[in-house]
């Protein structure tokens, strides 16, 4: 418990002691911090002018998202697309967090439920599809730029890279400003915003604001968790350092560097496997039962040593003759973190919420990765299995909104591994695509906060229906919560029918469930191409938007993998099922008129936007997919 006290107090204590260099807390009314560098004389040889560079800036946005990993990107993009001005602050030179080229973790999600994926849709799927179009070569550095493109093309987003939110200005339990250091420009930014979303993983901003959090493992009794230890302790799952190798076509020698730590595999658990080692070994992992953030640099050094030690074992032990031609091609220097702070919200998600599939009325996301708790000690305790894989889910679990905002800092939300949950719950929900769903949820919630001038807790108590409907319109999936948007005019149609049906039914396009799940079919699938769906209303209506959700085969994973795996569970290309070319017609006074056309579509959610048009029927013509012989749709919506 003392350790937890340390974490609770740590952030504020550092500020009060003035230990952050070059920053002093101002007594000014606006509570902004001042960055004092009077002695910095910038001498320009060209103009012979001496001046003090301006290294402080103040910017104001409606929403500030801290952390540019999968969760942060989805939070920022969802908020921006729904109309608010967002700043996305990322402390690295690239976006993507653990999935970036700096770390290269596969962007996993609900990868495997009874042999099939139950893939996340919405913004995270869009990113992964964007990557399939722009990065056929499956390059991690190119993936960085794909994500960069995905973010900067949004006009409502300001992206700040190489910038870390290191402190906060708090008033009445609300964050007024994030104090951010951009090291490439030597600039201290004061970022004012109405809503702050901490998706940074470690959550320095939230911690500095005094947001309550936990670290370590809960004891069994607290949440009645089967897989928790008997007594609470401080253990946090470690960070991993990855690498990849390439086949040089000839024998390549390897000598370990001075800092390598000898690895022999003696006494190792039988479950400590080497399969796929050429693309990195996830159990080269070091955690901490203390201050895992404070230990980070020490652990990084160890991890680099272990990485080379294991590679030395592979190359030189004689046990891996097939590795003779392999050479290290890329080695990580930035460990991929799994766990540190878990902030406390109005609800703490725990093991049985997941394993017993608790239904939350405020569900906004879902998960399904196994309860994959890595062993205490990591590679320093190799007699243990590297993960216990306590429980494999048979279906997805729900994740509630009340776990995504702070219990005590009123305008603070979070998404990612730092949300309100137990250590055991984290062992599943920490997976990036799951975090991304949380990100889209809090980004959408932030818009409701801004538009209605309310705080996240009020969203939870009074506007859950609104956030759920918007999320589903934006192609997020919420288990056990069919969409029922009162503004959707498709639901008022008198008739819906299709030109042909191989499976499902055209009426399913209006049932509010945007995937086949739990053994239920919720799709319409044509028999052949040039397939049409027609809706008719009793009376003419005015339409300006029609949206469809087409098939992208959510039962097959599409994330980029180092091994470019391509089989029934993983694919390395654009889903062949996705609609490529489609045209929308409206019947205006008895004549069919083309309203909009989408060519070379790249998304599951396809939007037709056109001038407001009065018609009494629409007809959607699906002309081509990316390879499938039939077209499959899950939803069709119409809006004035």
């Amino acid at each position: 418990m003392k350790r937890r006290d340390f974490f609770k107090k740590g952030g504020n204590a550092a500020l009060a002691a003035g230990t952050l260099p070059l920053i002093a807390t101002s007594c000014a009314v606006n509570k902004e911090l001042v960055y004092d560098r009077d002695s910095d004389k910038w001498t320009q040889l060209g103009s012979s002018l001496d001046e003090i560079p301006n290294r402080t800036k103040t910017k104001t946005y409606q929403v500030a998202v801290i952390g540019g990993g999968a969760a942060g990107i989805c939070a920022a993009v969802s908020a921006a697309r729904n109309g608010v001005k967002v700043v996305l602050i990322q402390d690295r030179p690239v976006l993507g967090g653990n999935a970036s080229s700096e770390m290269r973790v596969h962007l996993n999600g609900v990868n495997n439920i009874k042999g099939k994926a139950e893939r996340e849709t919405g913004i995270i799927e869009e990113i992964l599809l964007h990557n399939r179009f722009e990065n056929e070569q499956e390059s991690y550095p190119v993936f960085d730029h794909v994500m960069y493109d995905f973010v900067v093309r949004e006009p409502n987003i300001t992206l700040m890279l190489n910038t870390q939110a290191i402190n906060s200005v708090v008033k009445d339990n609300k964050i007024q400003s994030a104090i951010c250091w951009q090291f490439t420009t030597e600039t201290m930014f004061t970022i004012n915003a109405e809503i702050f979303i901490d998706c940074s993983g470690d959550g320095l901003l939230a911690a500095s604001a005094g947001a309550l959090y936990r670290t370590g493992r809960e004891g069994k009794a607290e949440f009645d968790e089967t897989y928790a230890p008997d007594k609470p302790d401080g253990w946090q799952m470690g960070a991993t350092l990855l690498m990849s190798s390439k086949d040089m076509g000839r024998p390549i020698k390897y000598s370990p560097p001075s800092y390598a730590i000898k690895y022999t595999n003696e006494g190792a658990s039988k479950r400590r496997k080497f399969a796929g080692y050429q693309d990195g070994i996830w159990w080269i992992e070091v955690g901490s039962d203390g201050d895992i953030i404070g230990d980070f640099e020490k652990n990084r050094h160890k991890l680099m040593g272990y990485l080379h030690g294991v590679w030395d074992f592979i190359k030189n032990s004689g046990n891996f003759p097939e590795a003779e031609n392999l050479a290290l091609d890329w080695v990580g220097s930035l460990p991929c973190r799994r766990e540190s702070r878990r902030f406390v919200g109005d609800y703490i998600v725990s093991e049985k919420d997941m394993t017993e599939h608790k239904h939350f009325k405020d569900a906004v996301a879902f998960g399904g990765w196994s309860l994959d708790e890595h062993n205490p000690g990591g590679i320093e305790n190799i007699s243990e299995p590297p993960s216990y894989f306590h429980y494999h889910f048979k279906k997805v679990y729900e994740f509630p909104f009340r776990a995504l905002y702070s219990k005590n800092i009123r305008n603070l939300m979070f998404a990612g591994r730092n949300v309100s949950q137990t250590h055991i719950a984290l062992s599943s929900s920490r997976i990036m695509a799951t975090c991304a769903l949380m990100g889209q949820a809090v980004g959408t919630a932030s818009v409701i906060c801004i538009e209605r001038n309310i705080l996240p807790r009020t969203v939870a108590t009074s506007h859950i229906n609104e956030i759920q409907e918007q999320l589903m319109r934006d192609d997020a999936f919420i288990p056990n919560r069919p969409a029922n948007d009162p503004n959707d005019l498709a639901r008022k149609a008198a008739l819906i029918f299709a030109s042909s049906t191989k499976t499902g039914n055209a009426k399913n396009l209006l049932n509010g469930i945007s995937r086949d799940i739990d053994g239920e079919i919720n799709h319409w699938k044509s028999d052949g191409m040039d397939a049409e769906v027609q809706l008719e209303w009793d009376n003419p209506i005015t339409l300006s938007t029609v949206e469809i959700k087409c098939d992208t085969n959510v039962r097959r994973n599409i994330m980029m993998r180092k091994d470019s795996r391509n089989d029934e569970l993983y694919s390395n290309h654009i889903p062949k099922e996705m609609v490529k070319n489609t045209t929308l017609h409206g019947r205006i006074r008895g004549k069919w008129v083309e309203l909009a056309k989408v060519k070379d579509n790249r998304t599951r959610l396809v939007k037709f936007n056109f001038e407001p048009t009065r018609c009494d029927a629409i007809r959607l013509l699906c002309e081509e997919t990316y390879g499938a012989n039939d077209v499959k749709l899950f939803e069709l919506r119409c809006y004035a």
Partner: protein
Amino acid sequence: MLRLSVFIVCYILSFSVRFQAEETNAYALTSDIIKHEVSIKHPGEKEAIKGILVQIPKANGMHNAYYMDVESVICHLDYCKVIPVRIFWDDLGVFQKYTLKEGATLEKYKDDVFDDEDYIKLTSIMSNQKSPYKDVYINEIIRVVDTNDDVDAYSGETAIVFDPKETVAGAALTCFTLWHWANNNDMKRIINTITAQSASEEQLKNFLQLASESYPFLSIQEAKKRQWYTPEFVHLVLAKTFAEPKFLKPAIDYIEHAPTAVYTKSIKEFFNTGDETFKIAILRSLKKLGNKTPKPYFDTFCSNISTLNAYPVLVNYLEVMSIHNPNSKQINKQALSLLDENFITARAAYWFLSNQQLDTPQQQRIDRFYKKNKERL
């Protein structure tokens, strides 16, 4: 995208080949076998693998069998012991069995060999089209030395571990290699193609009658390729489709490639006998039809419009008439009768009629309809 680049060269060998009795039991001991050079993609290899696929016509001429000799493991290292394995498929490319040369044995890791139960289990694995080996990547299996290994494969953090029932312990690479030979989609496609191409017309007729879904598809597709449209075979196709609507799409595709007279006759029969699904499919086929068919054909296409009681059929029917039979007195008269139906049906008829040349009473009739419903039109 077809992953396989395949070329097939057929040549009939004039010499006889004697098989081991157990390999040939249902087949003629001696016959003119046909060899096909094939180039097949196997997930264990980057490049396509070339081989000889042998077709064995059955003595009674009904079904073929096929076999190919492959290697027991795909292995790029010297220490793998590779055993030739002969794999047999039926004439739809479905795995039947494998055989080894006399005295040959399959080996496991650490110089262990297959026992009798292992061979039985391997057959079971290869026969299981949903085997976990279907989804395993070879990189997950190639792990030649793993001193602590008690399972065959896993993937990343998900730890996909084979159920012991699904694998032969210590022989994951053999299971992987042979499963992907036995259930190779490209091999299946090649065998289907050869079977179809080598079938006689009598065999195609027989295929159409078989209960298996694959044979009738094969038969209809091959008949289309051969442009084989005898009245007897067309009738068989129509009868098969009425009995089993799942063949509607290939049947229409077949008829669409027929001479015009066959097409128009068959399509009318389909329309007047088939249900709503048939009718819509036929009308959509007619929409694509060129303008060669005379209008009277359409005047009598449907004798009574009121029988088109399904709205999707009706709207498609009216669209076909707009395209191929505009200003037909017969059709206009039919459409006028719909103005007293439910509003959505009447509206469709109204929009159709408003684009037709009408006589004065007809025009007055639709004007009255407009006046009554103008707020809804």
